[in-house]
Structures are given as structure tokens and as C-alpha cells.
């Protein structure tokens, strides 16, 4: 559990890897996924790095694989995803892989080229077939018109089919030429217009659509085409028509003039098409075989190539040692996992067969380490909620474990309804139970992934909503009478005569209340009362103030843990204590009054209870009006106590504002003197003053690792480890890179500290007031939710219940459907979303502002799992 309260302890490590073992070691670390490498050559371009050629080869392999994948998808062959996770292959295997892919790609390309040629051939033949068939009908029509014209003397020349007439008359005298071809159907109108314009109307075009779409051999798309035949006269027009055809990418085919030749030709075409079909079938089979074989392995290949690429990307971040014998890397890793990392390195070294072990060596640094929380699938969602606001600073208290309970609870306070909660709970339960199957489906829908990612949050929200719904006694805006109502209308008082008299009756608690409350939750009698809202409002408002103030108290006390952990006694005395006092004086006291009012006034004294709001305002104004008759005034003792509280609260403000900056200034002046003195003594001891002073377990020189390191590196810059300055910057010397460390000691700047502190103080003091008011949203949203569901019931469902006769069953079915849909869409989804957002805000602003800095950065380990999950777009 402790692991979630604070982020993992991290350490900066230096890795010395033998060149030949580096690859396998990084591969092992990638499988482990616990190490975040730092880029040691940020000034180098992508193409100036050492392993750029290997990366390029990987990219080339990926390209080939993508090509294969595309082809496989085109043929609709299922790709086998066994889910196994092969190790990154050794560098020498890369050549084998490359050769395999090369072979496959070439084979594929050859097959494609062949089939493209064949398809083109096939397309041409089919087009020719269509041309022959369609032109046949043109010519037959012409023949028919011809005969008709001859047989029917009454038909004038104009009415005779143009083609028939022309073909006959000119066909005899002048040679009438024609070309036939096929064109894309959408180009036809423009083609026709252009022909008309360019030839000044001296051509005649007939066209017919080809019914079946044809396959374009290059792109593989289905396209619609049309057959056309153009008649013209003379060679000039012929060349012009041909040019236009060329321009519109129409394909022209020779078409014999006499019917018998045409018939012969079409017979020939048919047999050739038959032949081609068998050949095409064979090519298709061959292609299919190749692809099926590739589809079996393609996922594994992708994983392998991506792993290799990731490894080389990482190796590119390393520095080369002067002797070129080993690579130097720097990385962040969790202290607790150092052993596992060591083991991984050992495995890597063994696998590579290198005799010299790889060395892991802890460095101390003043750089802020990354924040790393170990999460399981339940806590992950809540951690994400927290991280969305800001990643926790290193080792600061992580609000996530508390959020797991408080977040669903505050949500439920706003969303209290057993029915709606149940719907939510069941939906989340379904997602949780079928987790594995749903995860395997890898649905890419953004909304779905959001819901699925937050399934445990939703589950808890649903469960808590049922609980608060039970307390509010609300189920779809109705109440349950489980334990028996504690109110009754006595027969003597409410006689038939009285009941006949009016519609509304007021039950006096003195007579009608049994005296002991409903055991758990709200008495169901209130659901029939007209003043239900007034009652629940008072209840919910008070509860939300109590919940809010206690959460804020909790937040402030968490800041105590932070101060203690970071050894900051000054902050405890100058911030934490006045903060607690301030909060208690103002709102802690208010909560006490609330409880007092709840507990101390029985139904008989209800009329004399004091008003809390007025009381609180008066407390701050020191103004206590003379009580009216029947009211109990504020006692003198209470007046004095309240006055004292206000004075203390006001005094806390200067305490928070001035104490810390001035104390710091005093310390600074005194400290400087002391340090000069220290330097004289030759003892540099500055780290206790540095802002980032977490308990860093420093390794002593007696550690075995350091001895190793002296042996392996034989460069003098690592020897003087006791000197903090050299420690921080020595990796720069090794690499020769120029990135400058941020200066480690801050200069004390009094005005800045003062301004910061005043901002802090003002924020806290005003925050306490506005945040308390802000918690009233718990009441407001809960009221809105209850009212909305009640409105939906009365406006929709009650109509359905009002029908009578044989219509009633049908009406109720239809109206119930409408009511159910609206319940889910409006009340569960929309209201749920709004309650979620408000709960989120209460956590981010009201709760976390009390203790959470959120200035850290995330630990992003080098892990194959992440890289593979994100597919191609890694890095």
C-alpha cells in the first residue's frame, strides 16, 4: 500500500555496456520495461547518430511488411494473431529477416506485375467483346432502319434514323470511316461535347453502356465504362478524333466492318478469354498461397522488427566511450528494482556471449527524478484522474489512493438514486467481468475506450450511488418503506370530517411522530409531503458542508505528512498549524454547531432552534441582536468563545504571511556566515539547505560497484566521487556533450519568497471560504438530480399509468419505453457526466489544492509492451 501513497524511489544510474553486449542488454531491459533512458546526445541530428543505418534498414523492413500487410488485407486473408511475444532477434538474424522480406516482396511484386498484365489483357479482351457485341446491335439497327426506309415510302428523309441514312448513302459513295472504343462513363459527356466542338459537328457518335463494372488493373477498383462508336469522314477528321480519344484515355479497338468478320473475331475473343481465365485463376492461386504463408508470420515479424528498431533508437541515445569498447548510458530506474535490472543485464551479457559483465552504477544527482507509481488495473483509472491535473512531484503524497474512495463517494452524493446507480453498476460490472474479451477486441472508438478505461471508477460510482440512494431513500424518484414509517396520523385528530374538509394537512411532529427515527435513511413519509424539498435541502446542505470541511481538513493534514517527509519543520510551524487553526475557527466550529443543532433539539423544541446561517454571519460581525419572543438568544459564554475564534482566525493570517519569509531570511543570513566558516574547514555540507532534499540513500565508496567501475572505465573523472560538483557533471565530460545542468543552488531572493508566500496565504484564506461554499454543489446537484427524475416520472410515466381500458397495456408499454430511454440518456448519462465533472473539480481544486503540488514528470520506461501497443507511431 505504501507504494501507492508515494511514488517509487528512483535513482539515476549509469550503465556501461560492452559494445557487443549492448544490443542484447537493451533488449532484456526493454522486455523488463523498468528503465527510462536519457538522451545523451540531444545535439545530434537524427541522421548523425551511430545506429542510423540499422534504423533505416528497420524502416525498410517495416515498409516491406506494410506492403505485404496491404496485399494480405486486399485479399481478405485473416492474419494469425497468436498473441505470442518473440524476443528481439539477434542483430545477425536481421540479415535473414531482411532476406526473407526481400524475397517475399519481390515474389509479390512479380506476381502482381504478372497478374496486372494478365488483367490488363483480360480487360482489353472483355472490352473488345463488348464492343463487338454492342456495335453488332448498332449495325443491325442501321440495317433495320435501312430496310424500313426502303419498305416505307411515306417516311421522309428527316425521320429516318440518322445512322441508317448516312451509312447507306455515304457508305456507298464516300467511304465513311469509324472507330470504336471504350471510355469511362463519367467522361462521356465531356468527350461528346469536345468531339462536337473540335470536329464542328461532322462526326456521329453512338454509345452504349456496359452493364457490368470492370476492374481497373492498376488500382483494382471497379469502374463503369461505355462503348462508343464514332463515324466520320476523311483522314483529317480521323486523326483528330483519334487525338481526342487519346486525350480522354479512351481505348480504341479494331473493329471489322463486315458482320461475318465480326462474328469470327468475337469467337476468337471468346476462346482467348477462356484461356486467360484459367491462367488468371492459376496466378490468383499462387498469390493466395504466398500470402497465406506470409499471413501466418506477419504479426510476429512486425513485433520483431519494431523491437529491433526500438533497441537501435535507444542505443542512439547512448554515448560512446573514448576507447570505443563500451557504450555509456544514463537512465532512471526504481531503486526497488535494481536487482531485477542487474539480472536482466546479466542475462543480456550471457546471451551475447561477452566475457566482460555490464555494469550498473548508481549516481547521485540534484536533478528531479521522474514520478513512478506502480498501479494495478483498479488504481490505474484513479491515478489517471489525478495525473490529468498534474503529475505528482517526486515522492510527494499521491492523492490517488484516497481518491479511490472519496471520488465515487462525492459523485454518489450528487447522484444518489438506487435505480440509476444500479444501471451504472451493472454496466460497469459487465465491462469488468468481460474485461479480457473486450480488451482483446481492441475497439478504437474514443468514447468506448474512455468508458472502458474507467470501468472500475464507474463500478465504484454505481455502488456508492446505490448506497447514497438508499440513504436518500430514492429509487427512480420513488421511496421504499422498508422499516415502517415513523409517522402516523392518529384517528382522533384526523377524523373523516377533517379529511373531507381540506386537501393538505399538516402533521405536527409533537403528535404524529413516534419519537424514534427511521432506522436508516430518509423516512419514506417525506415522499408524499409537499415540503419534502425544504426538508431534504436543509439536510443535504448541512451534510455537504460537513463532508466538505472534513475533506479539506483531511487535505490539510496530508500536507503535514508531506512537510514531515521532506523534513521541513518550518512549513509545519508557519503553514500547517495556522492553516488548521484558521480552518477550524471558521468552519470546524460551524460543523460543531450543525451537530449540536441536530442532536440537541427534539421535536418539541424545534421551533426554538437557532438559524445557523444568521448565527455564522453574526459571529463574524460581532453583532448579536436581542432575541425575539420565543427565541433563545446566544449565551454570553458562546459570544465570548465565538469572538475568541474570530480573533484567532484573523491572527492566523499574518502568521501564515510573515513568519516563513522572515525566518528564512534570518536563516539565510546566519547560514551564510556558517558556510563560510565551513568552507574554511574544508567540509562542504550544503545539501541540507537545498530545496530538493529527499532522503537519498547514497552509496558509499566501499560498494563493490564502484570498484568495478574504476577497473572498467579507466578514466579518471569518476574517481572523485565525494565531490558533489564533479558527480553532477561528470557524464558531460565523458560524452563531450554540452548540455548544461541547471544550477543546483537557488539564490535566496527575499521579495520573491515574500510574494510567493502572500499569494499562498491569500489563496488559502479566500480558498477556505470559497471552497466551503463550493462544496454546496454536492447539495445543488443532488437536488437537481432528484427533481429531474421526479419530473420525468410525473410528466411521462404517470401519463402511462393514467390510461384505462384495452389501450392501457399498449400505452404503458410505449410510454415505459420512452421513460426508460430518457432515464438512461438524461438521468444516467447526462446527469452522471455532470456529477462526474463536479466530483472531479472538487478533488482537483478543493481537495488537492490543500497539499498537492503536481510539478513532477512522468516516468516513461523503455518498454517493448508500450511500443508494440502503440503500433507504428512509436517514439
Amino acid at each position, binding site marked *: 500500500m505504501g507504494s501507492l501513497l508515494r511514488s517509487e524511489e528512483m535513482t539515476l544510474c549509469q550503465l556501461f555496456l560492452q559494445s557487443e553486449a549492448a544490443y542484447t542488454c537493451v533488449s532484456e531491459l526493454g522486455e523488463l520495461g523498468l528503465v527510462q533512458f536519457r538522451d545523451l546526445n540531444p545535439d545530434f541530428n537524427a*541522421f*548523425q547518430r551511430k545506429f542510423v543505418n540499422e534504423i*533505416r534498414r528497420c524502416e525498410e523492413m517495416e*515498409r516491406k511488411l*506494410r506492403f505485404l500487410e496491404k496485399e494480405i488485407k486486399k485479399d481478405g486473408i485473416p492474419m494469425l494473431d497468436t498473441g505470442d511475444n518473440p524476443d528481439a532477434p539477434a542483430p545477425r538474424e536481421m540479415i535473414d529477416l531482411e532476406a526473407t522480406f526481400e524475397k517475399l516482396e519481390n515474389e509479390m511484386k512479380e506476381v502482381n506485375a504478372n497478374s496486372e498484365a494478365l488483367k490488363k489483357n483480360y480487360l482489353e479482351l472483355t472490352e473488345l467483346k463488348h464492343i463487338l457485341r454492342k456495335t453488332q446491335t448498332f449495325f443491325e439497327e442501321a440495317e433495320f432502319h435501312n430496310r424500313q426506309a426502303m419498305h416505307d415510302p411515306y417516311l421522309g428523309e428527316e425521320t429516318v434514323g440518322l445512322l441508317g441514312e448516312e451509312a447507306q448513302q455515304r457508305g456507298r459513295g464516300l467511304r465513311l470511316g469509324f472507330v470504336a472504343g471504350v471510355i469511362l462513363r463519367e467522361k462521356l459527356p*465531356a468527350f461528346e461535347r*469536345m468531339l462536337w*466542338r473540335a470536329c464542328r459537328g461532322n462526326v456521329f457518335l453512338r454509345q452504349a453502356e456496359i452493364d457490368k463494372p470492370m476492374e481497373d488493373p492498376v488500382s483494382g477498383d471497379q469502374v463503369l465504362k461505355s462503348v462508343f462508336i464514332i463515324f466520320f469522314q476523311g483522314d483529317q477528321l480521323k486523326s483528330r478524333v483519334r487525338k481526342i480519344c487519346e*486525350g480522354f484515355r479512351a481505348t480504341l479497338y479494331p473493329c471489322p466492318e463486315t458482320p461475318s468478320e465480326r462474328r469470327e473475331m468475337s469467337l476468337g475473343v471468346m476462346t482467348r478469354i477462356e484461356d486467360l481465365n484459367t491462367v488468371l485463376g492459376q496466378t490468383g492461386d499462387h498469390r493466395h498461397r504466398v500470402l497465406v504463408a506470409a499471413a501466418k508470420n506477419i504479426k510476429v515479424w512486425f513485433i520483431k522488427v519494431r523491437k529491433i528498431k526500438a533497441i537501435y533508437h535507444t542505443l542512439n541515445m547512448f554515448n560512446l566511450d573514448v576507447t570505443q569498447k563500451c557504450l555509456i548510458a544514463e537512465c532512471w530506474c526504481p531503486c526497488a528494482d535494481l536487482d531485477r535490472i542487474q539480472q536482466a543485464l546479466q542475462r543480456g551479457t550471457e546471451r551475447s556471449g561477452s566475457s566482460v559483465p555490464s555494469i550498473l552504477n548508481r549516481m547521485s544527482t540534484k536533478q528531479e527524478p521522474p514520478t513512478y507509481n506502480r498501479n494495478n488495473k483498479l488504481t490505474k483509472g484513479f491515478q489517471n484522474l489525478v495525473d490529468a491535473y498534474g503529475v505528482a512531484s517526486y515522492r510527494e503524497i499521491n492523492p490517488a489512493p484516497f481518491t479511490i474512495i472519496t471520488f465515487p463517494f462525492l459523485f454518489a452524493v450528487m447522484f444518489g438514486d438506487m435505480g440509476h446507480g444500479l444501471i451504472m453498476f451493472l454496466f460497469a460490472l459487465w465491462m469488468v467481468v468481460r474485461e479480457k474479451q473486450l480488451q482483446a477486441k481492441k475497439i478504437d472508438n474514443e468514447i468506448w475506450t474512455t468508458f472502458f478505461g474507467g470501468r472500475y471508477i464507474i463500478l465504484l460510482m454505481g455502488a456508492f450511488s446505490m448506497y447514497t440512494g438508499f440513504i436518500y431513500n430514492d429509487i427512480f424518484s420513488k421511496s421504499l418503506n422498508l422499516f415502517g414509517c415513523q409517522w402516523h396520523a392518529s384517528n382522533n385528530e384526523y377524523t373523516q370530517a377533517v379529511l373531507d374538509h381540506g386537501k393538505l394537512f399538516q402533521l405536527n411532529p409533537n403528535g404524529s411522530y413516534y419519537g424514534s427515527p427511521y432506522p436508516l435513511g430518509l423516512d419514506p413519509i417525506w415522499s408524499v409531503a409537499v415540503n419534502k424539498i425544504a426538508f431534504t435541502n436543509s439536510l443535504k446542505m448541512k451534510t455537504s458542508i460537513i463532508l466538505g470541511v472534513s475533506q479539506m481538513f483531511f487535505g490539510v493534514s496530508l500536507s503535514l505528512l508531506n512537510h514531515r517527509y521532506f523534513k521541513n519543520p518550518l512549513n509545519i510551524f508557519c503553514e500547517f498549524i495556522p492553516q488548521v487553526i484558521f480552518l477550524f475557527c471558521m468552519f470546524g466550529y460551524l460543523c460543531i454547531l450543525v451537530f449540536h443543532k441536530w442532536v440537541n433539539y427534539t421535536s418539541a423544541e424545534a421551533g426554538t432552534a437557532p438559524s445557523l446561517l444568521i448565527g455564522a454571519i453574526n459571529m463574524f460581525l460581532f453583532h448579536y441582536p436581542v432575541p425575539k419572543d420565543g427565541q433563545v438568544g446566544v449565551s454570553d459564554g458562546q459570544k465570548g468563545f465565538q469572538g475568541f475564534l474570530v480573533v484567532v482566525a484573523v491572527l492566523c493570517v499574518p502568521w501564515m504571511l510573515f513568519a516563513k519569509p522572515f525566518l528564512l531570511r534570518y536563516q539565510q543570513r546566519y547560514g551564510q556566515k556558517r558556510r563560510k566558516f565551513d568552507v574554511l574547514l574544508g567540509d562542504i555540507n550544503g545539501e541540507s539547505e537545498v530545496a530538493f532534499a529527499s532522503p537519498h540513500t547514497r552509496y558509499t565508496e566501499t560498494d563493490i560497484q564502484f570498484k568495478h567501475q574504476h577497473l572498467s572505465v579507466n578514466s579518471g573523472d569518476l574517481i572523485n566521487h565525494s565531490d558533489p560538483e564533479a558527480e553532477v557533471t561528470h557524464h558531460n565530460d565523458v560524452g563531450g556533450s554540452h548540455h548544461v545542468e541547471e544550477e543546483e543552488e537557488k539564490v535566496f531572493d527575499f521579495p520573491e519568497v515574500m510574494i510567493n508566500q502572500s499569494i499562498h496565504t491569500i489563496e488559502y484564506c479566500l480558498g477556505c471560504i470559497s471552497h466551503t461554499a463550493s462544496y454546496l454543489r454536492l447539495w445543488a446537484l443532488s437536488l437537481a438530480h432528484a427533481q429531474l427524475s421526479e419530473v420525468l416520472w410525473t410528466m411521462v410515466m404517470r401519463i402511462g399509468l393514467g390510461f384505462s381500458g384495452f389501450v392501457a397495456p399498449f400505452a404503458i408499454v410505449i410510454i415505459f419505453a420512452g421513460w426508460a430511454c430518457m432515464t438512461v440518456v438524461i438521468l444516467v448519462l447526462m446527469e452522471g457526466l455532470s456529477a462526474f465533472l463536479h466530483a472531479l473539480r472538487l478533488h482537483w481544486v478543493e481537495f488537492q489544492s490543500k497539499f498537492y503540488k503536481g510539478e513532477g514528470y512522468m516516468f516513461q520506461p523503455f518498454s517493448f509492451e508500450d511500443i508494440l501497443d502503440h503500433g507504428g507511431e512509436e517514439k
Partner: protein
Amino acid sequence: MMPELSFNIDHGYLEGLVRGFKCGILKQTDYLNLVQCETLEDLKLHLQSTDYGSFLANEPSPLSVSVIDDKMREKLVVEFQHLRNHCLEPLATFLDYITYSYMIDNIILLITGTLHQRPINELISKCHPLGSFEQMEAIHIASTPAELYNAVLVDTPLAPYFIDCISEQDLDEMNIEIIRNTLYKAYLEDFFNFCKNLGGATAEVMCEALAFEADRRAFIITINSFGTELSKEDREKLYPCCGNLYPDGLSKLAQAEDYDQVRQVAEYYASYKELFEGAGTNPGDKTLEDKFFEHEVKLMKHSFMHQFQFGVFYSYVKLKEQECRNIIWIGECVAQRHRAKIDSYIPIF
């Protein structure tokens, strides 16, 4: 009244989009990295880390400059088509106007090609895809301008610009050049008027940009006409009349007989004076053309400072084109191992 108020209703999304696209334009640091490349593969690797992303990822290995060119152009075209498909009037017409200049270039390219007996397929592949139109491929049937107009161009939006050229007798090198410039003149003037009628910030920005374009053409026409048989009267007819030079500068330009006289004309205009002064033909100097490009880039960058106007679309296309030219220049220098002049690209941001 106040077109700015309702601008975002119709064009806000696309303006935002184009401003986003603009952020992907390569910066000076990118160019510094690019000029360090040893091979085209390096170039590819670096371009992958920019906004171009994996646009070359699926190209098989020996990479050539023309492939890079094609792919960059393709990317621009895809973006432009996306804008064009989602826009409303009057932005739609505005974007169409941008494509007209590419159409003119394509027509001229095709006519010149057919004049030199090149096969049409080879020419088509060289045409800019932004300026392609349906009848384009049938252009080689025309042997005279009149025919060209009647058969091919009459259906295209360029038809009204072409009317002035019909009188030319036949298509030879000279006449083609004249046709190009006449078309351009008509196009620029039309575009200028269109933008002026749109009013508001669009007019402000675009008129400045188009006026510069017009003046640049006038200068270039004049300089290129020295030593050819083009008469001064004919030359004057080719000057677009929407620039800052109109009317005095143009009439002076029409009288110019050598480069120095052109330069004298430019002296009267502060911004052009600067350009002529900076230009030279010595090695190490920038050419006048580069100077003009630099000025154009400046203008285009400037147009992004204005809100609620269409100038950003024009500017984006122009800047992207300049970027393509830069990368191709660097690519060619890298490919031909001729690194001496690799630095004479024109930085944008």
C-alpha cells in the same frame, strides 16, 4: 456590415485549419538540419521528424528528388482539396481563383510540349495536379489559338481570359509566351477585382499580394524581352494593370531598353528599389528572382497577421510552394553532391 462578425460562422473552421497547417511549415532550424544531410536518405529521415511525417515511408529505397517532389506536391494537393471540399462561398471561388494560375501553367506546358512533339502522357505527368481540368489532355488537337479556344478552353473558367489571344495566328514559341502573359494579365486583374469586391481585410491583404505579383511580372517580362523581337507596344500590352507600377511605372517600363533603365524605374518605388539594390549576378549575390521570392515570403507571412480574411489561404499555398522549391533545391544539391550553393534556399520562418 461588419463581415468580421459572421466570418467565423462560414470560414472559421477552415481558417483555423490553415493556420494549423501553417505551423507545419519548416522552420529555420529544420533547414539547418536539412543542409547537413549527406544523402537523400538522411533528408527523408529528417523530414520524417517534421510535419511531413511518414509521407515517404512507403517509397522503396533508392529515393530520387522527383519522388520527394511528387510526394510533397501530393501532400499540398490533399490539403488544398480538403479545404476546397469543405468551403463555402465566397471562399470557394477564392480557392478556385488560386487554381487558375496552375491551369494557365499547365496549358502553356502542354502547348509547348506538343509543339516539340512530345507524347501527351509524358506531359500530363508533369502538370501540376492543382491545375488539372477535364479537357486538359485533349489540348494537343489544337493547332491555332482560335481552335484552342473553341475546342478546349471554352468550357473552362479560363475562357474569358483567352479572348484577347484568339487573334494570334499560329502557335510558335513567341506566341505561346505572349499567350501565357496575356492570360496571366487577365487572370491577375480579374482576381484583383474579385478580391477588391470582397472588401474588408481580404481586399487589404490580397490586393497587396496581387499588386506585388503583377509588378513582379511586369519587371520580369521587361527584363526577359530584351534581345527578343517583341516590340515595345506589344510588351506594354502584357503588363498586368493592377500593381503599384500602374500607370506611370508601367509606361516607363514600356520604354526601357536595358536593365539599368528598368532599375531606374524601380528607384521610384521604395520596396522595389531595395530589391534591385540587393540583387546581383556575381557569385555570392542573390539573384533578382530570389529577391522577389524573399519579398513574396515576407508579404505572405505578413498576411497571417490579419484575422478574418482569405489571404491566409493564398499565403499558405504560396509559402508551401516556396517550401517545396527549397527542399527540392536542397535535395538536388545533396543528390548531385554540389554543396557550394546549398545555402541559397529562402528561409520562411
